[in-house]
């Protein structure tokens, strides 16, 4: 008597047969028929035609039959709303049934029927059930509120169910509390209007913590998740919550453990980092995380993704647990790759030997992806731990000796990175690398090898032959390889001009005449022109010293990391993306880590904000994938302003014009000049900026490139800050380097330390035709929202045009924030000076100032630093000065000037110590201007 027989009826008249059976008088037959219907439903067959007949079976005393009909109803009510309405009466009656099981079942099923007409009738029974004497019914009703909210949010809020739900948080039964919490968190996730009425306070948190010990494991997950969203008032509260949450770390359910980890990780931010308590917590966190790794592979995977975040935030938690991340032979591949990632993060000088031995083993494994990643990992070890670089390199060489094709290729790619990190150190191995030249067939490996040859052309005797061999199949190569080959040959030519002239001509003509790729052609032309006009300049551009690559290329950006830490144990932590990046169409709350508030002044806004998107730092760390791209770009100075300027300095503006390329280049150079702000007034658009900076006597720093064209899809933004007529201005120059006109410019600031915001909309020439720039002064006020930034003077800006929205961040020079009202009375000054404790005083030296005391005080006064008194003590001039910031912070200063000496001593006194470095910087800049 098994259920499989229900699957066997595949006859044509099946539906009719069932219909007849459903209407039969015999209860047994009816039940069998309903079972058949359910069986068809589970496999996805459409049995909605039987709706009316099945619903007719609902009025029965038989609980099993009732349940089966309810199952059917939940699935199909939506398709037949009119017939579904006849079931309402039975539901309402069942809600009054003496048996709590039936009451709960009815209210539960009603919530699952997503038909508007039915929901109207649901309200009354639901209200009763929320206050039912039986906790089983109450707990079911709590979930039902969430269901109803999903169907009709407005109705739930109007009917006051939210308050009823909140009352359930104080229920005597922990199971009811847990379900209420779950329902609340689900409602909060989808609705913003429900927010205020469901806000957690310390009272409710306390109740939740009490319920935490007694409710089921699933309930614990919900409770822990909502505790993690609560921002404790102070350190003490955070500590007491942590104390009550730590026992959960020993739970058998991995979900509970990870949720508890989340709460603790988040609250640790508030606690005193050097306190004993944090040290103890750190100790307690490590064993449960390790234990998660002996669970099923799926759990391991999620745990590893989270551990990846945790070790980035707090490396000390797992620093001694390297061994547990060693890969087991039978781990699924996704676990292996994650473990490898974490191993690299935990690598340090102490355990490098162990790690390296492991990695070497992995590199001889069979799975290609895994082997590649292992080889790459060895390279990353070398870059991360300098002391071990040598050993890593020799390991890589051993691997190259294995002659396994993909291992060799991968090894060459990482060796290139090692060369970039430690130039002129390991060049002895180049010979070995060259032996493997023929086996390379992947573009990345070929490009890396070519880069190495080009970079060290002077040490490789047959570099020209090697490069020439690559050149034979130039047309068939990947673009990456072509570009690299072009650059490498130019480098070779610059280093050994005598015997490689033919080669360079060949490659330039290949690149400029036979190629369809605009990047390649442009680069070819640039090199050609550079070489033909001024080889010395070309040398300086092409062979310029390259910045070392950063140690950790794939660290998550700190702000994002902080946000992700708030989402430990959730999907976001698995994807390493904030939820708003992948949850569609929902007003997802952004969460931010709470901060330790002690010792911070004027910073109050800690709550999460919804509006401004995360502004990207303009110094983005390149990802591993883009490394090679960067490397290529570097040669011609695409995105790095430093090299642009260098290039401009080298080339005289009167470029002899003969070929078609000149126009293109000439114009490009003009724009570069404009962007760089070199100070030539050949460009009309720029002159008014320089003019304005001459009018005002206050110091305006030169414009710098805030948004390079490469990041702004052709829009370059340069700018600076100035203070004129008691107002702060942001001087902006927009340059359109794209091929199409730009329009609809707009600007917005993120919250910042001083509440700077635009006082008027951005006024700028629009549309801005290609290859033109436009300048504007944007008036700013300080009435915006305040949030402390790190560093303090960072301002994150979003600029919009018809192409897109771009983000960059810039530093506000402190002195534009000095107000005209900063002058103090002598008595006040004296009193304030004494009032501020002596430990707040810091001294610094300003070197190499060529002014006497009078010009100094004049210069400072122009920038709203007021000299209140001047004394002469033992031949030294002492200037006592005061200034005040837009947010009311007053700073007192004492400047000691010795005649004949160019070094001044500056003492600062203020109640807020964070700003000292910026004030010192401001003094320094003003005096050197």
């Amino acid at each position, binding site marked *: *008597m*098994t*259920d*499989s027989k229900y*699957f066997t009826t595949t006859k044509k008249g099946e539906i009719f047969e069932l219909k007849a059976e459903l209407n039969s008088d015999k209860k*047994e037959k009816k039940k069998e028929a309903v*079972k058949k219907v*359910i*069986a068809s439903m*589970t*496999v*996805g067959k459409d049995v909605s035609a039987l709706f009316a007949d099945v619903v007719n079976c609902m009025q029965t005393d038989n*609980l*099993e039959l009732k*349940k089966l009909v309810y*199952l059917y109803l939940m699935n199909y009510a939506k398709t037949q709303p009119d017939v579904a309405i006849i079931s309402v009466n039975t539901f309402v009656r069942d809600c009054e049934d003496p*048996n*709590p099981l039936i009451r709960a079942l009815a209210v*539960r099923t009603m*919530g699952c029927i*997503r038909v508007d007409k039915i929901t109207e009738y649901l309200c009354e029974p639901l209200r009763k059930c929320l206050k039912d004497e039986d906790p089983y019914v109450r707990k*079911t009703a709590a979930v039902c509120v*969430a*269901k109803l909210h*999903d169907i009709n949010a407005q109705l739930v809020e109007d009917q006051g169910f939210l308050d009823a739900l909140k009352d359930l948080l104080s229920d005597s039964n922990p*199971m009811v509390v847990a379900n209420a919490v779950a329902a609340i968190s*689900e409602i909060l*996730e*989808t609705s913003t209007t429900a927010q205020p009425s469901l806000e957690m306070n310390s009272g409710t948190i306390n109740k939740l913590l009490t319920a935490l010990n007694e409710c*089921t494991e*699933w309930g614990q997950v919900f409770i822990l*998740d909502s505790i993690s969203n609560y921002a404790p008032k102070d350190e003490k509260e955070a500590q007491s919550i942590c104390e009550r949450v730590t*026992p959960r770390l*020993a*739970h*058998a*359910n*991995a979900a509970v*453990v990870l949720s508890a980890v989340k709460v603790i990780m988040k609250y640790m931010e508030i606690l005193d980092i050097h306190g004993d308590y944090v040290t103890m917590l750190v100790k307690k966190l490590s*064993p*449960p995380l*390790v*234990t998660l790794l002996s669970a*099923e*592979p*799926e*759990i391991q*995977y*999620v745990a590893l993704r989270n551990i990846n975040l945790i070790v980035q935030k707090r490396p000390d938690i797992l620093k001694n647990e390297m*061994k*547990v991340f060693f890969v087991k*032979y039978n781990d*699924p591949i*996704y676990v292996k790759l994650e473990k490898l990632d974490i191993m690299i993060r935990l690598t340090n000088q102490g355990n490098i030997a162990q790690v390296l031995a492991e990695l070497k083993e992995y590199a001889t494994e069979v799975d290609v992806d895994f082997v590649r990643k292992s080889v790459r990992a060895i390279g990353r070890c070398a870059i991360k731990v300098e002391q071990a670089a040598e050993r890593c390199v020799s390991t890589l060489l051993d691997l190259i000796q294995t002659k396994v094709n993909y291992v060799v290729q991968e090894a060459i790619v990482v060796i290139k990175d090692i060369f970039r990190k430690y130039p002129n150190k390991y060049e002895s191995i180049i010979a070995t690398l060259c032996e493997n030249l023929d086996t390379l067939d992947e573009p990345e490996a070929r490009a890396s090898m070519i880069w190495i040859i080009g970079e060290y052309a002077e040490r490789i005797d047959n570099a020209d032959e090697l490069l020439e061999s690559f050149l034979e199949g130039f047309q068939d190569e990947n673009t990456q390889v072509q570009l690299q080959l072009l650059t490498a040959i130019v480098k070779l030519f610059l280093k050994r001009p005598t015997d490689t002239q033919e080669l360079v001509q060949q490659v330039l003509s290949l690149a400029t005449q036979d190629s369809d790729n605009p990047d390649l052609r442009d680069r070819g032309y640039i090199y050609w022109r550079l070489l033909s006009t001024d080889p010395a300049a070309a040398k300086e551009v092409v062979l310029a010293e390259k910045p070392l690559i950063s140690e950790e290329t794939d660290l998550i950006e700190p702000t994002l990391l902080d946000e992700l830490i708030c989402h430990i*144990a*959730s*999907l*976001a932590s698995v*994807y390493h993306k904030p939820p708003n990046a992948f949850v*569609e169409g929902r007003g997802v709350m952004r969460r931010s880590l709470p901060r330790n508030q002690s010792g911070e002044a004027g910073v109050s806004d800690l709550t999460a904000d919804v509006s401004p998107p995360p502004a990207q730092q303009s110094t983005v760390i390149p990802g591993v994938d883009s490394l090679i791209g960067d490397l290529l770009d570097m040669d011609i100075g695409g995105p790095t302003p430093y090299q642009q300027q260098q290039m401009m300095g080298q080339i005289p503006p009167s470029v002899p014009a003969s070929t078609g390329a000149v126009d293109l280049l000439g114009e490009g150079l003009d724009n570069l000049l404009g962007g760089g702000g070199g100070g030539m007034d050949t460009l009309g658009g720029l002159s008014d900026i320089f003019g304005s900076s001459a009018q005002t006597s206050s110091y305006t720093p030169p414009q710098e490139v805030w948004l390079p064209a490469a990041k702004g899809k052709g829009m370059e933004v340069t700018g600076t800050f100035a203070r004129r007529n008691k107002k702060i201005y942001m001087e902006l120059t927009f340059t359109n380097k794209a091929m199409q006109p730009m329009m609809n410019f707009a600007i917005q600031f993120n919250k910042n330390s001083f509440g700077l915001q635009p006082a008027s909309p951005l006024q700028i020439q629009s549309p801005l035709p290609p290859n033109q720039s436009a300048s504007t002064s944007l008036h700013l006020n300080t009435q915006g929202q305040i949030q402390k930034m790190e560093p303090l003077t960072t301002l994150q800006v979003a600029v919009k045009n018809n192409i897109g929205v771009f983000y960059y961040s810039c530093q506000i020079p402190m002195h534009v924030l000095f107000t005209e009202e900063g002058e103090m009375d002598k008595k006040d000054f004296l009193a304030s000076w004494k009032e501020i404790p002596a430990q707040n005083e810091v001294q610094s030296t300003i070197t190499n100032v060529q002014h006497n005391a009078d010009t100094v005080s004049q210069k400072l006064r122009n920038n709203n630093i007021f000299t209140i008194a001047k004394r002469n003590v033992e031949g030294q001039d002492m200037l006592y000065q005061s200034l005040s910031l837009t947010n009311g912070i007053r700073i007192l200063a004492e400047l000691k000037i010795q005649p004949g000496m160019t070094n001044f001593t500056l003492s600062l006194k203020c109640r807020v110590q964070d700003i000292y470095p910026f004030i010192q910087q401001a003094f320094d800049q003003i005096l050197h201007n």
Partner: protein
Amino acid sequence: MIHSLFVINCSGDIFLEKHWKSVINKSVCDYFFEAQTKASNPEDVPPVIVTPHHYIIHIFRNKLYFVAVLTTEVAPLFVIEFLHRIFDTMVDYFSECSETSLKEHIVVVYEILDEMLDNGFPLAVESNVLKELIKPPNFLRTIADTVTGKASGFGATLPSGQLSTVPWRRTGVKYTNNEAYFDMIEEIDAIIDKAGIAVTAEIQGYIDSQVKLSGMPDLTLTFVNPRILDDVSFHPCVRFSRWESEKIVSFIPPDGQFRLMSYHIGSYNSVNLPIYLKHSIAYREGSGGKFDVTIGPKQNLGKTIENVVLQVQFPKTVLSATLTSNQGKNSFDPVSKLMTWDVGRIDPAKLPNIKGS
């Protein structure tokens, strides 16, 4: 919360779907199939898959994929743990969880799933509560049903354990023989280097219990040296505060079989291996290699070591292996390149050894 569940067999048929909220078309599984075809092994499908509108989390057990579909941000571990629980419950009910057994009891399965989750929230997951709500199918009941002519798989009353503070135990349990069994299972993960010395060793241990006691028994379990346990996790029935303060495991056990605790002993404590291995393995380019492994007991405390099985995963390049052992049977699977040697009992006088090329 968990929106829907699909159960898929190895050949890619969706033979069960259950929706706790609105119905999601099964075409969502196409994303899963896409990931499945990319992976080389059935185990290698990534457990979390993101699609444009849904998130798919799955576990692979007993040749079945349990695929949960979510629409909102949910803790993935929560879902994975829950899927494990579903699997365990099915095993509990039908003694195995396979495609045939699920199909055989499809209505019961459907009812169980409905009972376990409500709107995506776990409702009743404790096996004893579930069993009171939905009676597991068994032979005796089938006979009784056919004789009496009425078959009700449902308890009509509210299960008693559901709301008490000990939800894992129902009231009024009675046995004529009161007995409790505890199994201690320890898995040792060790890596042995070329010279036969253990590089690392760590223990993952479990205490599984089978308790058949009447009434509401309150049990305690003490360890001689609890300090060596690095990390423990308990069944919810264990009073954690008492463990914290006195290192005593005190609990009211659930009725029947359950895992009382699991623990981990890390590499800081010296773990003594019960056996040692002497091996000499050499591969030669092209022609083959030599393989020689001897197993011997270490400090056996008078107990003999039994049921020893040695598995060796050979590299993919190995085509065949001819091995002779002085004891037990060995076999080599040329497809998975896995050699299995069933040694059996270790006799200290005559050490088992396997040789071959």
